[in-house]
């Protein structure tokens, strides 16, 4: 199971890297989404997959799955959700103002143009 997860995470990272290297802003935003998905799955895998019972208090002393990674992922998902939303809004505004979504045409600052 861990190996399967590792492959999925690797594919996500590779796709994200490929998309980050493209010139369209929209693809870059999708890439940031994929990259954070990969990172979240990595937390889940690193916490150990399916090792014990449901993490509820029990008297029997059955070992339980570590609940902490799930809490971490929840936090990280909310944050990446917020950042992606802001990213989309700024990209849209930039498209309106600059008239392009091509990163190549956004080079330099006024001083060194």
């Amino acid at each position: 199971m861990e190996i399967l997860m590792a492959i999925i995470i690797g594919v996500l990272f590779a796709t994200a890297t490929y998309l980050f290297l493209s010139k369209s802003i929209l693809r870059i935003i999708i890439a940031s989404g994929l990259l954070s998905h990969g990172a979240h799955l990595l937390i889940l895998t690193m916490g150990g997959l399916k090792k014990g019972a449901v993490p509820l208090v029990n008297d029997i002393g059955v070992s339980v799955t570590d609940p902490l990674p799930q809490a971490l992922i929840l936090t990280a998902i909310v944050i990446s959700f917020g950042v992606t939303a802001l990213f989309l809004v700024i990209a849209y505004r930039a498209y309106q103002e600059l008239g392009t979504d091509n990163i190549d045409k956004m080079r330099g600052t006024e001083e060194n143009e």
Partner: protein
Amino acid sequence: MNNLVVLPILVPLLAAVILIFFAKNVIVQRYISALSALINIIVALILVREVSEKGIQKLDIGSWPAPFGITLVSDMLSALLVLSTTIIGFVVILYSFKSIGKQREKFYYYSIIQFQIIGVIGAFTTGDIFNMFVFFEVMLMASYVLLVIGGTKRQLRESLKYLTVNVISSAFFVIAIAMLYSVVGTLNMAQIGERITSLNEVPGILTVIAVLFLIVFGMKGAIFPLYFWLPGSYAVPPIPVMALFGALLTKVGVYSIIRTFTLFFNFEQGHLYEMLMILAIITVIIGVIGSIAYWDIKQIIIYNIITAIGVILYGVAVSTETSLTGSVFYLIHDMLIKAALFLLIGMIIHITGTSNLRKFSGLIKHYPTLAWTYFIAALSLGGIPPLSGFVGKMLTVQGGFEANEFIGSMIILITSILVLYSVMKIFIFGFWGKADQMYVSKENVSYHALLMPIILIVVISVFYGVGAEAVHSFIAQAVEPLINPEIYIEAVLKE
């Protein structure tokens, strides 16, 4: 347990929420933000006194005992950084009154400034590595908004790049935390340190994790080769925001490197410290080349941030008591003086209407106070005794020589002359020379209202330098847990 630890985060949080309700009433906003910043300085002063008297203070949030819940820890280093953050916040808010413009003030500018300060102070205070990520995100989210607020073309363009870079580095942060968690099985920074120290043999993966952390914090702190985004992004926002970014954001990255490298990755294997040292030296050189090469006053000061980061990290990489004392000294000095310098060149830009050094001269004739304030700040940055830059740099270099790192120390000594040249260049070409041009009159730029906060922060930095003897006892206390991480670990995990 001490509730004081969380107060420097709560005061700006409360102020930020209240400020949202007064979005359209600029005057009320100004009073509330200045007042809350002042209260926060007092809180931070009390915190520093408390820490200096009683040692490291901590607060377990929700009374969950230390390794299980989130712990906020205030040792001397973080308390001092919190104090400097609050001072810079106060000064920047005062400066914003007359320079940021009604339009931005009505669009939640002051509120976002408070959120920014929450993020920075939180990252300095937290004792939990995942919580540090969360505070980083609070800080970054506020910085995205501050960078883009106003919505000019160049701001939008640079915001996109800044966002992309930081989204990637945040993903790396999560990855690094995930891998660290799989190795040590805890998130509490003290316990991570304890568990790594107790390992007989350090697994190789820890070196990988250390490098991942170095990439994440290096991206925030703009060390070579990850500084590429900084000169473009920092040049576009309005001056007070630029001062806030230049003084605080990169320093959070540096603080995190200091904290993680002294607490977690203090093992000898893996050549981590050599790598950090080489990167620090290259950072210094790159920064100083940039600051000499440009004739744009914004870029000169921005590249000086990169130089300073290199100097601080050099002290960390040498990692003796003397060099770490120098680093901490220089870190706080640099926060204060960078804020002052950014605000000063902001005033020059207000007066002359340009940031190109070739297009103005002779400012000293009509603006003598501005000129001499700039002169003191410039000398201080260059490290002329008895001003504040001197002590930090001297101790850093001394530590380097004591550890037989001659090449690096010599490079830092030589570059500090070039740093002085780069800022004196502005003084020589901008303030001296023929005063033949007509500039905006003093009334139109509200000269005194803008100069007052700058003089305040320059005076603080002068006292920081002249009173180095008095400050030194605090710095020494801040360095103790960096040299002996057991002090930090014990203070957090006891009871």
